[in-house]
């Protein structure tokens, strides 16, 4: 930059640094017009060239009917499809084995079991953990999957059906249906009867604070409940009625909770996963759940 071109009479060369001043002066204080460092200027020019090259190589400028495509032909959507394909290719050998193996045989093969458990665990944490808990330990209304107290069945095929079609998930035609009548709300039983039958259920379960409701509780149970829960409260997997005398409770064993169950009836809802998850993932999930400890 040449000082001569600027018609500012106050510009002068600073004697210490040899650099021109800007010509601004405040009470005798002047400002040096130090040029930008060379490296900075060249980096700046380099970024300008980079951006021009980018426009040529990658999709960039919108035009009237579309945008410039870029000579590389790169597209973010094509790239992700390719990335997923690459990922599937690296997993393909083991996934293909899981896919082709009969469901019953996977657990006998240590290599397949380990792979299915890994795939299953990831899918479980992503899709199932919010309801069943990260360790499949369950929560109120969402069953613990580590125990052998199955509502709908703990064989591989049962578990697979539950996962594929869900429970009381109306959008799936093959979903598991059947739910408990709302004995209290719909007036099938009076509040006193509900209380009696709840006491009977709690005696059956041998709870320390259970009150035996004489014989009327047993009669009420046999008439209203045994059809689904069995005469001894052993449950029935055909209709998803849980065992009532074991220590595993879906909703809780407090009197108020049991009374509320009998009043409201109904049943828990689980989404169907067929379609949302691919078949191999569902198979891996089945093996994962089955191998948690309660599989039959």
């Amino acid at each position: 930059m040449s000082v001569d071109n600027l018609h500012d009479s106050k510009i002068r060369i600073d004697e210490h640094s040899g650099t021109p001043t800007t010509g601004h002066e405040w009470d005798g204080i002047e400002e040096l017009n130090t040029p930008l460092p060379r490296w900075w200027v060249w980096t700046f020019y380099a970024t300008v060239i980079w951006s021009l090259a980018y426009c040529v190589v990658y999709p960039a400028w919108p035009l009237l009917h579309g945008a410039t495509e870029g000579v590389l032909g790169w597209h973010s959507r094509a790239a992700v499809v390719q990335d997923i394909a690459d990922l599937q290719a690296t997993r393909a050998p083991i996934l293909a084995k899981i896919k082709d193996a009969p469901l019953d045989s996977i657990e006998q093969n240590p290599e397949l079991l380990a792979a299915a458990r890994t795939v299953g665990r990831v899918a479980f944490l992503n899709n199932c953990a919010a309801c069943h808990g990260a360790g499949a330990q369950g929560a109120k209304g969402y069953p613990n999957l580590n125990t052998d107290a199955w509502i709908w069945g703990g064989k591989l095929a049962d578990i697979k059906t539950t996962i594929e079609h869900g429970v009381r998930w109306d959008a799936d035609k093959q979903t598991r249906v059947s739910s408990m009548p709302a004995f209290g709300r719909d007036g099938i039983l009076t509040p006193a009867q509900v209380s009696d039958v709840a006491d009977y259920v709690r005696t059956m379960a041998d709870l320390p604070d259970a009150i035996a409701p004489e014989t009327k509780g047993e009669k009420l149970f046999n008439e209203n409940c045994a059809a689904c829960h069995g005469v001894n409260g052993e449950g029935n997997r055909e209709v998803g009625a849980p065992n009532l005398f074991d220590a595993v409770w879906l909703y809780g064993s407090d009197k108020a909770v049991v009374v509320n169950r009998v009043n409201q009836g109904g049943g828990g809802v689980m989404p169907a996963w067929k379609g949302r998850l691919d078949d191999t993932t569902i198979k891996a999930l089945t093996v994962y759940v089955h191998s948690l400890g309660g599989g039959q």
Partner: protein
Amino acid sequence: MSFWTRHQVFEKNSIILIVGILAVIAIGGLVEITPLFYLKSTIEVVDGIRPYTPLELTGRNIYVREGCYLCHSQMIRPLRDEVERYGHYSLAAESMYDHPHQWGSKRNGPDLARVGGKYSNDWQRDHMRDPRAVVPSSIMPGYAFLSKTPVNGAHLTEQMRLLRVVGVPYSDEQIDNATVDLAAQAASDDAGGADLQKRYPNAVLGDVAGKSSVTEEDALIAYLQHLGISVDFKLYDDKANIR
């Protein structure tokens, strides 16, 4: 003044500098935004996208009001790990009736673009009232008050008319039946549900039998259950919509 020193004009006068900055930003904006309005490729042509039902729309207003977008995005970017976790990448068409869209940019919680159908209405209720009851490690605040607040449908038809002005194709029939449809979708055993599903295919009905009033929670859940389920990706052609 040589060409190489002319930049000093901007540097020595703040007004000229500001005008210069505005001009440069305006060019950027014009080039990036204007074409979105006329380029046909901006929004893919796909089947299945319909305007929100009155209940979903009400729920959406609550989603915006409560600032759910401050912790949740609704945008699955075309990146491998996102597609692996959340499902198919989001399409522009999926938010074409959103005014404004809820893409967001913050993910304290997971992306919600495909949360529809992932959980039951029961779970959504449990989680909304007390997230830690179902997800012990959750840091999401509870929204229990939504279950005690009846929806305010006073401006529903006005909002639908307004949305029509900006291009959401609500029919007169849909607008006239807004209040009926709102109640029908929240109740489970209502015959109006069939009419509603004729007007709005795929509408997910509520499941609380004998419900007397529609709460904000019902609306929000109806909205969440609709997120990301409209397009059938088995029929979607990835190749045809390469961008």
